[in-house]
């Protein structure tokens, strides 16, 4: 353990030296430096907190994430500021430079959703993505189902050969129903499942669209936040105020950005987009469950709705028992009072 710790420390300090070397002279932060810092810190966290409590590990990870964010923020802000500041000081038009950076940022934020939105129009490609999701979901399922009887057989009889047939049965059942349907949706054996898959597809498309719209809104908000932060710095500079430290700069950034996001979060547009994202995600989840349950039913495996129904019945029975117990106690108490109030006979 001690050796492992020493190795990690050595490795980490070597990485730190690399980190220092990666720093270019004119600007304090570069993308390579940020990446290297993150790798180094994550390595250190893993090495040092192997035996630590979960909360300590979680906090450590959040700390590293925050540091990573700091470096990336610095990179963008300082580059922008380097371009804008001389204009501000010279009393020249800085709006054009700021607009250029803001537009670049907007493009960066919105590039991904826009590209995805384009892909959204291509149904064939979407169907492929949809099936990819299902493969991910079903593959471990199928393998676990195939392995489970074998393990059960080994444990119970010491010889799993009797269960091989059962395993094959499961495998065949999967292949006959869900497996083939996944591979070729147009040739589904059961119409119902095919229909569920298609409905699921439709729900998934809607969810993706909602997700893109939401990302676009967040991207816009990020752009506004960046612009607001830069304007805040410019206003300070014009007033002759100075930012003395990185820390001060960071907390100003957090203040400004939280304000911009807080305002956006209150807007009707954001609330509707967020609500739509949540609703479509949940609708898709319901479809997903329906499809998984069809598969489980075929494989003789209990499924979610079945368990929910069992829990519901138990819940009502439990409630009934509680009520009956209370009534019984009340009757007992009443009888006891009556018995005490009646004179003893005989």
């Amino acid at each position, binding site marked *: 353990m001690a050796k492992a710790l020493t190795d990690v420390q050595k490795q980490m300090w070597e990485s730190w030296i690399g980190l220092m070397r990666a720093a270019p002279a004119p600007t304090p932060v570069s993308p390579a430096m940020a990446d290297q810092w993150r790798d180094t810190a994550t390595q250190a*966290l893993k090495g040092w907190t192997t035996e630590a409590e979960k909360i300590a590990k979680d906090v450590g990870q959040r700390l590293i994430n925050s540091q990573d964010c700091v470096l990336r923020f610095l990179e963008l802000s*300082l580059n922008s500021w380097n371009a804008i500041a001389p204009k501000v000081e010279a009393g020249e038009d800085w709006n054009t430079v700021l607009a250029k950076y803001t537009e670049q940022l907007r493009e960066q934020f919105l590039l991904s959703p826009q590209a995805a939105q384009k892909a959204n129009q291509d149904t064939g490609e979407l169907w492929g993505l949809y099936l990819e999701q299902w493969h991910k979901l079903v593959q471990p399922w199928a393998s676990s189902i195939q392995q489970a009887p074998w393990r059960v057989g080994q444990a119970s009889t010491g010889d799993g050969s009797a269960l091989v047939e059962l395993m094959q049965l499961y495998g065949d059942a999967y292949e006959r129903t869900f497996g083939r349907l996944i591979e070729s949706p147009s040739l589904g054996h059961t119409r119902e499942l095919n229909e569920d898959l298609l409905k699921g597809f439709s729900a998934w498309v809607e969810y993706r669209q909602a997700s893109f719209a939401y990302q676009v809104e967040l991207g816009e908000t990020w752009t506004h936040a960046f612009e607001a932060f830069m304007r805040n710095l410019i206003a300070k500079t014009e007033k002759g105020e100075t930012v003395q430290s990185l820390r001060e700069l960071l907390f100003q950034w957090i203040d400004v950005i939280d304000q911009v996001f807080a305002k956006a979060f209150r807007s009707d547009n954001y*609330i509707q987009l967020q609500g739509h994202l949540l609703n479509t995600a949940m609708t898709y989840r319901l479809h997903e469950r329906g499809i998984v349950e069809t598969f489980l039913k075929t494989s003789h495996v209990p499924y979610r709705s079945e368990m929910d129904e069992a829990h519901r019945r138990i819940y009502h029975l439990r409630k009934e028992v509680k009520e009956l117990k209370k009534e019984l106690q009340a009757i007992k108490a009443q009888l006891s009072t009556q018995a005490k109030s009646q004179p003893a006979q005989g």
Partner: protein
Amino acid sequence: MSRSFYLSPEQTMRELIDLNRKVVTGIERLSHVREKDIQAGVSPKEEVYREDNVVLYHYIPMVEKPFHIPVLIVYALVNRPYMVDLQEDRSLVRNLLKLGMDVYLIDWGYPGRGDRWLTLDDHINGYINDCVDVVCEWHGLDRINLLGVCQGGTFSLCYTSLYPEKVKNLITMVTPVDFHVQEGVPNLWAGCSTTAHTMDVDTLVDAFGNIPGEFMNLGFLMLKPFQLGLGKYLEMIDIMDNDEKLLNFLRMEEWIFDSPDQAGETYRQFMKDFYQGNKLISGNVMIGTKRVNLSQVRVPVLNVYAEQDHLVPPASSIALERYVGTTDYTLRSFPVGHIGMYVSGKVQKDLPPTIVKWLKERTA
């Protein structure tokens, strides 16, 4: 680099190195932290009643002859109740005990999938009522004092309106009453604004079953994403060489991320009737077969709110006065946020004596 912007590459690099040195040292310190170091819920207590997942605790009194009418704390279903007894120097419970109170607390536990069907009826007419009965029986009393916290305060209001004969005095802390107050982002997100309801609670519950604690937590963190997700950890760097402050921070982190799932049917009704329908103040909330009418709350009420509360906006709590039937209503506030009500040193110095004095004055 601009002269007005005194951040030279050398200076920034030095600051970064210093910052990162602190992070590295801090992570090393974190590796030595053990569960027992950040144990919350410090005041000695005993379990006196258990029903399903719910446990009623009695705190061991700290004076020989405690005040004869006990206080039952009803906490929210969201997060864990040990926030009222986080650590020795940040404990509402401990301060009440020191001032001679006899204190009970309902711990709702962690609902599992089997608890998905529990309703508000089960919580209010069931668990709270049963706990009140147990405390009454133990003390040979007909009525006890209730202290409801946040959502627990809303539950306590419902309970008091339905069972006025069992409540001597009611204290509500950071309690939402008017759910359509527009200052509250949670209210807006739940769909109280002028636009149509955007959150389909039915689909959410049908899809999730129980609402995951992580989902609830994400919603709370999104209210101040950069302060809570970034700024807080940057501030933490400065306290990492101070064991006491670091442990305090970790205890709070533990509490923030210790979010129980919400029983599906309870969440469904709470969101639809309270957040979306705002039925508590219109007198249309049904708890089982009983209608909640706040005008039936005729016992003395002490309503305490946090002036900088971003979860329960002050206006939402202050609204209570307009709807309760009591003639003995007291409003108090503290210049802190929602969580500051439990952990601020100043509040913990002033709030417990305020509660105790108020209770004693009403128990001649």
